[in-house]
C-alpha cells in the first residue's frame, strides 16, 4: 500500500511518514525499551494522532492518556524529543524524521506513556478551593487604570512543569512548580483561607526556597501560568512576612 492510500487519523490523506520511537514499559517488565513504528502523516498530524494511529493499526497494547484534543484537559502531557509538550497540540511537521516519545520525567510510570498523577496532585496545598472569584462576569469592566482582568486559574494540572524542573529531577521531596504556583495564587485570592497557612506550606527547604530559578517550568507550561515567576513572587511574600498577599475583594485588580 502506498503512503498516499493511507489516511491519517486526522482524516487527511497521508503525504509523508515519520518514524516514531515510543517508550514502552509494562508492570512486571524487567526494564523499559523503545518500539519503533513508521507512521503515515499529513501536514497537520499531531503527535497524539500519530500515537493513536499506532494504537489502532500496529499495537493495541500501547497505552496513552488523552481526552479533549485541544490543550484544555492536560492529560496528554509527554516528552517528545526531550521536550515536555501536550501531544494533542504538537504537530509532527518540525520534529524531524525520527520522533522520540517518552512519558513525563519525575513522575512514576504506570504503563508506557501514562504516568501516575496522584503524586503530582498530592503536592497541591489542601486549601485549593473550587470557587473562582476572579472569573468575572462578561459584563464586568476593569477598574479605572487597569487594562483588563487577568485570569490566574489557567493551570490545567498537566504535570509538564514538574517534568521539566531540574530540581524535581534530583529530588521527589520538592513540592514543584505547579503546587507552589497554586499556593501563590491562593495568596492573591485567599478565598477564606489563612495566608499564614499558605506561607507555611511554601516555606521550608522543599518549598519555594528549593527552586533554583531555571525557569524551565515556565518554558514548558502550555497554559501561560508562569509558575517560575509565581514562585519568585511567593519568595517575595515570604521575605515580607506575607504582606504581598492581596485581599480577595481586591483580586480583580491583581
Amino acid at each position, binding site marked *: 500500500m502506498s503512503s498516499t492510500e493511507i489516511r491519517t487519523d486526522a482524516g487527511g490523506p497521508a503525504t509523508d511518514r515519520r518514524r516514531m520511537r515510543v517508550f514502552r514499559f509494562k508492570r512486571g517488565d524487567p526494564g523499559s525499551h523503545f518500539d519503533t513504528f513508521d507512521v503515515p502523516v499529513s501536514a497537520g498530524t499531531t503527535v497524539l494522532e500519530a500515537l493513536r494511529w499506532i494504537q489502532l493499526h500496529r499495537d493495541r497494547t500501547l497505552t496513552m492518556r488523552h481526552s479533549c484534543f485541544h490543550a484544555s484537559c492536560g492529560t496528554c502531557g509527554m516528552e517528545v524529543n526531550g521536550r515536555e509538550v501536550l501531544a494533542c497540540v504538537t504537530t509532527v511537521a518540525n520534529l524531524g524524521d525520527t520522533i522520540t516519545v517518552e512519558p513525563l520525567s519525575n513522575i512514576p510510570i504506570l504503563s508506557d506513556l501514562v504516568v501516575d498523577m496522584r*503524586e503530582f496532585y498530592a503536592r497541591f496545598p489542601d486549601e485549593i478551593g473550587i470557587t473562582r472569584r476572579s472569573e468575572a462576569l462578561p459584563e464586568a469592566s476593569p477598574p479605572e487604570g487597569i487594562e483588563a482582568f487577568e485570569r490566574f486559574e489557567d493551570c490545567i494540572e498537566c504535570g509538564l512543569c514538574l517534568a521539566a524542573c*531540574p530540581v524535581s529531577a534530583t529530588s521527589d*521531596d520538592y513540592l514543584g512548580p505547579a503546587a507552589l504556583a497554586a499556593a501563590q495564587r491562593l495568596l492573591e485570592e485567599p478565598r477564606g483561607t489563612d495566608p*499564614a497557612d499558605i506561607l507555611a506550606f511554601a516555606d521550608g527547604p522543599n518549598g519555594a526556597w528549593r527552586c533554583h*530559578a531555571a*525557569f524551565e517550568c515556565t*518554558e514548558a507550561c502550555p497554559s501561560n501560568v508562569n509558575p*517560575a515567576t509565581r514562585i519568585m513572587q511567593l519568595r*517575595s511574600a515570604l521575605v515580607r512576612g506575607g504582606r504581598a498577599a492581596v485581599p480577595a475583594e481586591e483580586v480583580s485588580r491583581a
Partner: protein
Amino acid sequence: MSERRAGVPGLDERAERGPVRRKGVGVPASGWFDPRGRALGGFAFAVNRITGLGLVFYLYLHLAVLSLLLRGEQAWSDFLRIATSWAFLSLDVLLLFGLLYHGLNGIRVALVGTGVVPNRQKALWWSLGVIGTIALIGGALHIAGSA
C-alpha cells in the same frame, strides 16, 4: 496555623510506586543536567552549577598550591615558572570565566529569586552577559600581558 507537611505526602507509603524516568543519565543526581530541549534559564542554571563545582575544586587546588610555600623557596619558584606558561595562563582565563559567570549569574538569580524583577530573567542574563564578556576580554588581555 495548622500543622503542615514537610514534603510530598504518601511517597514512602506507596509500595506499588512505578519506576520514575529521570533526565541526565537516568539517576536523580544527574537529572539537573540534560541539555535536551532546555531553554536559556535551564542552561544558565546548569552552567552556574558547573562553575560552582569548578570554583570549589579550584579553592582546594589553590590551597594545595599555596602549601608549596611550606616546601621552601625553590619549590615556589619552580611553580611560578609553570604558572607563567601559556597553558597555565589559559586556565586562568577559564577560572576568570567561572568567577564572572557564577558571580554575575548569582546577582541575576538574587534579583529574580527575591521577587525584585521576577519577570526579567532573560533580559538580566543577556545584560549581565555583556558585562561579563567585556570583563572577561579585558581580564584575558591583562593575563596575556603577564605571560
